[in-house]
């Protein structure tokens, strides 16, 4: 059996393996440094940053739902300058490949964030948060409009030599059209999906269970929808995809790779099991070895679809 090489390319980004800690589920990375070897991850996508510090929403900010959780944190954060001064040096010292997730209320703010981070040593790529469902201004207002997405991606593209990865929302009718718009605007890759806009109500008090009323659903509950969306985007675009949504095990990682993801982000699983990373790497290596593959790219998009006639027949079996 030949040795397995886990290294992947995600556009211009070279990663030692395809596993990336998902933004919003891993703090700024340093919180996990005692329990996770950050240098062993493909990359760490840090919690979304605005130019300024943000307080976030009042609690309760999370609620557990079947096979998942809703969150409405409201992007509490330390702002980009404190991040560059206080956190980035720690991530560099830990040899973490750092993807910085940025969020603005205007196109100019995204561009300004991109310029600041381009001058900061130790930033591997920018992930554009145009998909957070929990804030009123910015974020998802860009991600739900093809024009808004194009404006943000184009502006950031002009402002940075760093790889640009817009993070897409699933809360649109046709995610693939947004992936295409991102590619045309100069994105190096796309990441998908952010959380699904959702709600939970306490039936005794009749109050929403989140202070923000609405929140984003993550966890295993969304995985099949996320896999479908990665699959659809893979058919639509040529740039690489970072897939995510409810990955808990190595089998889930493999499923996203087969659906067409070049790399896979892991979010909610960090809360359940912060020691999940070595298990995922070991499981992925084992799968590749068992199937006679020596590289991850062998299985990216390697889905075995039924013949077109059979697929059509299969679809017709569904509910009328």
């Amino acid at each position, binding site marked *: 059996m030949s040795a397995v090489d886990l290294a992947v390319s995600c556009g211009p980004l070279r990663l030692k393996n395809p596993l990336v800690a998902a933004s919003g589920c891993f703090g700024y990375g340093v919180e996990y440094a005692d329990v996770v070897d950050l240098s062993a991850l493909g990359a760490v996508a840090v919690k979304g940053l605005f130019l300024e510090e943000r307080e976030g929403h009042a*609690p309760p900010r999370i609620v557990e739902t079947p096979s998942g959780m809703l*969150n409405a944190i409201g992007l509490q954060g330390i702002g980009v300058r404190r991040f560059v001064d206080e956190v980035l040096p720690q991530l560099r010292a830990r040899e973490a490949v750092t993807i910085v997730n940025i969020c603005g209320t205007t196109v100019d703010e995204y561009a300004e964030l991109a310029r600041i981070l381009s001058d900061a040593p130790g930033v591997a790529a920018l992930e554009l948060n145009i998909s957070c469902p929990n804030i009123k201004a910015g974020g998802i207002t860009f991600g739900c409009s093809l024009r808004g997405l194009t404006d943000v991606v184009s502006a950031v593209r002009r402002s940075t030599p760093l790889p640009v990865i817009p993070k897409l929302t699933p809360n649109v009718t046709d995610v693939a059209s947004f992936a295409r718009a991102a590619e045309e605007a100069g994105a190096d890759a796309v990441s998908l999906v952010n959380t699904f806009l959702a709600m939970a109500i306490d039936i005794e008090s009749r109050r929403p269970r989140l202070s923000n009323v609405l929140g984003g659903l993550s966890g295993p509950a969304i995985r099949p929808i996320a896999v479908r969306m990665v699959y659809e985007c893979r058919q639509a675009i040529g740039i690489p995809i970072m897939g995510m949504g409810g990955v808990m095990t190595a089998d889930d990682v493999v499923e996203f790779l087969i659906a067409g993801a070049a790399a896979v982000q892991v979010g909610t699983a960090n809360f359940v099991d912060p020691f999940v990373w070595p298990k995922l790497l070991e499981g992925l290596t084992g799968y590749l070895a068992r199937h006679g593959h020596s590289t991850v790219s062998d299985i990216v998009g390697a889905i075995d679809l039924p013949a077109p006639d059979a697929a059509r027949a299969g679809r017709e079996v569904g509910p009328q």
Partner: protein
Amino acid sequence: MPIDVDALVMSNDRLSATCNVLKLAAPAVAAAARPGQFVMVKQDLAAAPLLRRPFSVFEVLRDERGDILGLSLLNQRVGIVTEALYALEPGERLRCLGPLGRAFSLGSPPGEAWMVAGGVGLAPFATLAEALRAAQVPATLLYGGRSKADLVYVDWFRRRGVRVRLTTEDGSRGEPGLVTGALERMLAAGAPPGMIYACGPTPMMRAVAALACRHRCPAEVSLEPVMGCGLGGCYSCVVRVRDERLPAGGRFVRSCVHGPVFPGDRIAWDALAGAA
């Protein structure tokens, strides 16, 4: 540094119809735990419910020679997870991640230490009582419940030299009324202690913090907000702390890493859910 162990359930002592003590073989977690710290537990990593739940380390368990065997959790049936923890049998396993969070400050209080517990808010005080005893600090436990069935482990504390003062809302054991009433009477009767520690329902802790403030006595409270991860990653367990330098007069901090123990006068109680 926290570790995660698949701990064997050594025993499940059901103390009442609603309350039990789970003894877990997790010696490494227990050995590292300081009073006030917590663990995040979950039955089967792959099974529902998805998220872990926070529990104070109740006792650090030792054998006759004093070697650490594990730790116990004080549990009360209130929801799906606590129901399952009530039903656990010896021989089953529980994932146990910890120890986590900021501990009570022990220092060397000049006088006595008073621990004010409401219901299962007793949980962080067993390890604290042992630490106070080791530091030769005289300790009093003020312990309140709705009814006598809510008051557990009273003799455990007495055996360790802790003075115990009990209250029940229905008067079925100890002084009738709220535990904060007993605290108020003790503070009115003499000199305040070197430190007051409190854990229980939020209105109780708020009242304790206010009384301590009025009597110029330092106080620490152990909060129990909803937590997602316990490690500072999810930002869900925030509580508002006072910070006069800020325009808003306060800011949200994560109770898993900045708490769960906070000085009573740092909490912006008006902003805390259920504090009224």
